[in-house]
Structure formats: C-alpha cells, structure tokens
C-alpha cells in the first residue's frame, strides 16, 4: 500500500469515528472509554511483530514487554467493559410497586 491509500483509510476512519461516537449515549461514556482503551491495544500487532523477529535481541525483549502491557489492556479493558455493561438494566416490570 502506498502512503496515500493508507492516509485515505485513516481519514475515512476518522469520519466514521466522528459519527459513530456522537451516536453513543452519554450514559455509556465510561464504558466507551474502557472499550476504546481495549481496542487501542490493537497496537499489540506491532508488539508481536517486534517480539517475533530475529535480528535484534533488545528489540525482541521490548516487543515482549509491549505484548505484556497491551495484553493487560486487552483483557482488562474488555472484561471491565463487560462488567459495567452488565449492570445497566431497564426498569423491572412495573407490577408490584404500588403507584398512586
């Protein structure tokens, strides 16, 4: 891929992000931050490439370190988002509670 096609993907993705994020309900802004945190750890791809490559031992260990950090985020981020989202519940059936 040349630079311009990559840039095009990037610019389009910014627009998609803009519209998608505005549609997120304010009540879910905290889970939004947690999940964006988790997905930004896709940087693990770069970390894996670094740790997989032969050539520079230092680069390899840095890569492994980055894999650990990103994994904390991936597992922690998705798990904590899941935990939060499970708490959001609608009003339970109106029956039972006496109205006026």
């Amino acid at each position, binding site marked *: *891929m040349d630079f311009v096609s990559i840039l095009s993907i990037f610019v389009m*993705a910014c627009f998609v992000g803009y519209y998608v994020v505005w*549609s997120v309900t304010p009540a879910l802004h905290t889970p939004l931050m947690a999940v*964006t945190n988790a997905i930004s750890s896709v940087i*693990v791809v770069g970390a894996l490439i670094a740790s997989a490559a032969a050539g520079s031992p230092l680069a390899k260990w840095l890569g492994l370190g980055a894999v650990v*950090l990103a994994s904390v985020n991936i597992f922690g981020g998705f798990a904590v988002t899941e935990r939060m989202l499970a708490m959001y519940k609608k009003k339970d059936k109106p029956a039972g509670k006496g109205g006026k």
Partner: protein
Amino acid sequence: METHAVNPWVAAAYLVAGVCFILALRGLSSPATSRAGNRYGMFGMAIALVTTLITHEIASLPEIIGAIAIGGGIGFVIARRIQMTAMPQLVAAFHSLVGLAAVLVAVAAFLNPDAFGILGADGNILNVSRVEMALGAAIGAITFSGSVIAFAKLNGNMSGSPILLPARHVINLGTLVLIIALTAMFAVAAHAGPGESPLFWVVVALSFAIGFLLIIPIGGADMPVVVSMLNSYSGWAAAAMGFTLHNTAMIITGALVGSSGAILSYIMCKAMNRSFLSVIAGGFGADAGGGGGGEAKEQRPWKRGSAEDAAFLMKEAENVIIIPGYGMAVAQAQHALREMTDLLKEHGVNVKFAIHPVAGRMPGHMNVLLAEASVPYDEVFELEDIQSEFAQADVAFIIGANDVVNPAAKTDKSSPIYGMPVFDVDKAKTIFFIKRSMGGQGYAGVDNDVFYMDQTMMLLSDAKKMVEEINKSLTD
C-alpha cells in the same frame, strides 16, 4: 517505497478486525445493544491477534504466549476486582499502558526496522517511516507520562490541586516546538540506520517530559477533560504505529479512538463552558477555598434541615429529582441512595436522577455508579432532557454536587463558572442540599446562592450517613 509484499488475505483480515471495532462502538448507542457491541470488539481483537501470529515467522511462540498470559491474567484480575468508584483511575492507568506499549513498539521498530519492512535499500530507515515512528513514540510517551500523573491525581497519590510552575507556558510551548523540529531533523538525517540516530531518543525523552509538564497544572475537576484527551492521544499513537506497519486494523482503531477521545473532550469542555485551550493551560481552581466570591463574604442566613425533614417532605412529594455529583462517589453513597429511591417509590413518589455531563471525574462516571447500584437506566436523565421538569418538581435532592447547580453560572458574569449550563434547581419547591459543612465551596471556589434560598434546607453530614438516616426515617 514499499519493501514488503502484503498478502491480500492478511490485509482483508485486518480490515475485518477494524470493522468489528467500529461495530463495538456503534453498539454503545444504547445499553440494549452495548453488550453485543463489546463481543464484536473482542472478536475483532482475536482476529487481529491470530492473523499476526500465523502470518509472521514466530521465533519463540512459548515466550509470546507467556507474555500474553501474564498480561492477560493481570488485566483480567484487575478488571474483576476494581471498585466502580475507582473507574477513572483505572482508565487512566490503562491509557498509560497503551502509551508505553506504543513507545516500546516504536523503539523496537527503530532498532530492528527490517522486521517491520521499513528499512530502505540504502541501509537507512525510510524517511516517511521515521516521521511516523517518531510521532508514534512521541504521542505514546506523552500519553504515558500524562496518564501516570492523571492516575496519581485521581487515585489520591498526588494532590488534586493544580501545581503551577513559573513560566510553564513558555517551557511547554518550547518543548513542543523542539519535539517537532527534532522529528523533522530525524526524518531527513543522513545516517538513520537501525538504532543509529540519537535524535530519536531525544524526541522520546522530551515527550515523556512534556506529558508530565502538561498534566501537573490541571486540577482535579478538570480531570474529565484530561482523561478524555489522553484517551484520544492513545488512539493517535496507535494510528501512527499503524502507518508505520501499514496495518489497516491499527489505523482504523487509532482513528476511532482518537476521534472518540476528542469528541468526549469537546463535550466536557462545552459542559463547563470553557475552551479546550484554557483547560489544557491549567490552573483552574488553584485558589479554591482561599479567596472565594468577593461579595459573598458576609454571613448570610441559611436553614439547616434534618434527615426527618427530608424523609417527611419527600414522602409527601409527587416528583423528586436527585442530582448526584462527585461527593456521592467519594462517600460511596450510591447504594444507600438507590434504597432511598425504592422506599420513595413505595410511597408513590416519582423519582428521577439528573446527571450533568461533568459530574464526577470522567464522562459517564455517575451513570456507571448508579447502574452499579441497580438504578434502572431509564430513570437517569441528561441535563437537557430533565431541565424543564424542575418547575414541576416538589423536591430537588442534591447529593455531592455543587457547581452544576450554581445559579451564578446563569447570572454572574464575573463568576469563573459563568456560562456553564446548570440545573434549574431553584425552580423546585424544596431543595435539599447534602454537604459536609458550610465551609467548603465547590471546586470552582465560588459561593452558591442555592445555600441561602428560602426553599433550601442544608443537610450537613457525610452523604452516605445522611441518606441512611433518611432511609431509617422513611421506614419508620
């Protein structure tokens, strides 16, 4: 300029991962679809991980699996154990990890460019890649050190009040300009083989410093903006590394996260009627508690209420609106508060929650705490949706909030919070205001006329204790 061939299937897999991440955010448009969205996110991440593992020559699979297991295990345990009130700190800590990971990846790419396919034929790293790498490392470093400070402030390891260095604007601007200039020099340097140019290291070091310097002057209540901003940076760092690796999943994700954080910062700034620049410049609330509002210094009469008064009046009320703020989180009063609403509902009272966008220490902080206490999300309302209902409200119950109900924001042009949208609590027939004491004045350090209104009763106590007492009188 391309040195490595991209397998179209691999590119397609990363694209699918990117689309899954878009769907993950899309799901958050409503609580009903949000969990499916989160699954998409996990699925996308699994695709990205597996694709990378099977398409690269893995020198040491056990080591990599071990690294994922260690990191994943730590993350999972933290996610299980963390208290919901500590969510802002947790998010800040997670941001710092993304930032540091980005720096490590950029440094690894700098030391071993061949593995990333960015080594030119002349033995130097490609010029464009140098810019992307340096930017990725710089943004990552800023994210890291900034998030560490934000974490320390939110977690109470460091005072939440702004720390103001003399000439900080000059230092900060100078450092930023220097980072950009050095990045440009690095991009065109004649000798830039693997690990060769010292300019790269200077850029990284300066970026760590600037992240630190940028956040220390920013006070606790501006943290929602800071946390959102660092969220955005962590995205841009991932995007920059995505450019280096020509990886669509990273680029799409980076753009999504970057815009998400930027939009949240914008929403937070607007909810405080402050410009992004003024928040970043910091120092707001520096003299909180010191000077206070000038003309409000003389003792004004106010009424003290009791838990019994509150219980009695709310029981008889038709509509009650509860306005929670950071104080509720500090006192962990959300569960007691939910109990109170249940008791009131048994008396046929219509109870609603009103949430200001900047209530708490991060966007949506109050909503999560109320959800944790099993308050149904359709009883929780945003500012613009509930504003008109205060006129019909019999009771406005303010717990741990202050600036977001201060009418000075509407009337007093000289007030630091002037122009900030606030709840029209003064339209309610009765106001209960839970506060620790009459001494402390909101974060902005301004006096609040609501304290002295005829229909206001101050409930001076710890928020949780007061609500528990009210619950006791409600059940009697």
